[in-house]
């Protein structure tokens, strides 16, 4: 009934209040959502980001970091919207991986 993300009121540990720096890739993910949602593109909404983060499932939700959830959700949304195909995304990922090899 209750989605895994809907954890208000559930037992939890102490709140971590310290600030931390963001890695460059995390800043790029943040910027990517801003660019995708810009009025001239309207390829994605914040509400779609939230919906597809909720759809990750409990295991992935717990395992992934904050911006890992974001990039997984952005990829899922753009696949659903038909902005690119799974094959196109897969080939591009392989190309980027080969760059670092």
């Amino acid at each position, binding site marked *: 009934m209750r989605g895994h993300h*809907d954890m208000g009121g559930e037992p939890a540990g102490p709140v971590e209040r310290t600030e931390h720096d963001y890695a460059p890739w995390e800043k790029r993910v943040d910027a990517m959502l801003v660019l995708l949602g810009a009025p001239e593109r309207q390829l994605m909404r914040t509400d779609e980001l939230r*919906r597809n983060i909720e759809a990750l499932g409990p295991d992935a939700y717990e395992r992934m970091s904050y911006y890992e959830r974001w990039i997984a959700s952005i990829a899922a949304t753009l696949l659903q919207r038909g902005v690119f195909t799974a094959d196109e995304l897969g080939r591009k990922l392989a190309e980027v991986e080969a760059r670092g090899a």
Partner: protein
Amino acid sequence: MNAPPQDALPAQFRPGDRVRVRRAHPPGHLRTPSYIRGQAGAVERLCGAFPNPEELAYNRSGLPRQPLYRVRFRQAELWPHYAGPAADTIEIEIYQHWLEPDEATR
């Protein structure tokens, strides 16, 4: 205050009205936390009217705009073993389609 936009639903509740959150569990992207569903509180203010985020999540227009309220609940009524002061409250912003008049406590 500006007149409500033409594409907004009329506000059904006013500050001070007793309301109850619908005890519903539909699938989809929901903006009402599960712990508050079925609970009764009082409207603290009308925040405005906004495209329904539960529809924006599926790339729909979210129109007409849904009135959004800040609703005040008593903590002691929400949690079975609440240890804080009895007067403690929590305020949650809830869209109108999740609210019903609370006849029982009117």
